[in-house]
């Protein structure tokens, strides 16, 4: 049952990312809903499932873009591994630490994604960092905060640390 819910959630996140989420785009920055779901899977179910889901979902998403296939799967896998840190650490009560790690994870994802997409183009890296990586990471973090507020507080905590 849990697996079915995750499959639905992941499929819905790809559909949302392709159809609905672009309407929230601000100056080119779009929140990455797939990444958020992958972070949740990794934190709640462990790094192995997180990396597998990240890889598959990244691949699905890449098939619809005009960029390189395999870039999102690489970035998502690395981000899922990084997010898995929160599974074994009881940080949910310390919001600043929790959000710092989540931002770090999103940032790692965006650095990987945009750096590889940039290969072969003449875009200045500093420009890329200021106009793409940083706004996109912060915007995704805003969505993480909204999800954190709307859904149960332990959504970004490992199963071992769920409230009784």
């Amino acid at each position: 049952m849990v697996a079915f819910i995750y499959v639905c959630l992941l499929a819905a996140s790809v559909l949302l990312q392709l159809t609905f989420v672009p309407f929230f785009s601000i100056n080119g920055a779009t929140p990455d809903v797939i990444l958020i779901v992958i972070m949740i899977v990794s934190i709640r179910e462990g790094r192995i499932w997180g990396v597998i889901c990240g890889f598959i979902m990244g691949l699905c998403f890449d098939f619809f873009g005009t960029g390189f296939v395999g870039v999102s799967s690489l970035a998502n896998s690395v981000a899922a591994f990084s997010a898995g840190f929160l599974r074994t650490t009881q940080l949910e009560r310390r919001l600043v630490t929790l959000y710092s790690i989540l931002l770090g994870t999103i940032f790692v994802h965006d650095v990987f994604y945009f750096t590889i997409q940039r290969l072969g183009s003449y875009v200045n890296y500093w420009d890329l960092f200021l106009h793409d990586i940083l706004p996109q990471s912060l915007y995704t973090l805003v969505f993480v905060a909204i999800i954190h507020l709307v859904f149960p507080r332990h959504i970004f905590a490992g199963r071992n640390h769920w409230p009784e």
Partner: protein
Amino acid sequence: MKLSHSSLARKESLTLLAAIVLSLLITFSNESKQIQTLRSWAFGSLSVALESLSSLSRYQAVFEENKWLRQQNANLMLAYSRVKEAQYENQRLRQLLGFKAKSSEKLVPAKVIGRNENGFIHSILLNAGSNEGLKKDMAVVTAQGLVGKIFRIGKEEATAQLLLDHNFRVSAIVQRNRVTGIVEWQRTNQVTLAAVPKRSDIKVGDKIVTSGLSTIFPGGLEIGAVAQIDKKQPGMFLNIVIQPSVDFSRLEEVFIVQLAEGSVNVN
């Protein structure tokens, strides 16, 4: 206990390593036939789901759109009669001068059923494909002007690369004085007209259209209007920012231009 922790950590690291290696292998074999086949298969199966989703939201806008279309229809009828007159006159003059007739283009309608906006990648998913006679690199337009070109094609769906995509370039001219340049997307979501010498007479508001010096885009398609000119930047060329005619955030229906075989663009 300690051993099981390290064993889990090893498994996790191996999973990550496998994912990275696989991703890199796929990234470096993007042009292979297998990847292309997989791409079009995934593309086709998901496009059905996306189309049904997008059609739900479209019902709300249908009445408003209908009203707007009726008004547009009336305006276009007036414009059409004037254009027709000009076309007859043009034909007569061309015959007098011995020019070849301009090839006609066919427009294939398509609905936008998905979009991809990620950093400098901008594309839309369309519900028409090779079954409708579409081919790669065909121009995509709306009544407002140029949208982009077909990037990938499936049997019943296609991906169009937008004018806002980082890798998109189109040869263009200033309609008023025929100064040529290259329209490309720059950082901070700006579309610019590049390679225009500083001595050129460009004014804010000048219309930018496709030059026709292309096997993809017919000449005279509206791209946008000059919004800003920076003459102070170093170098030989002007920095011209264009306001695109098409509102890319509201794309719902587009047309794909099918140029007749062996057509020559006469601007």
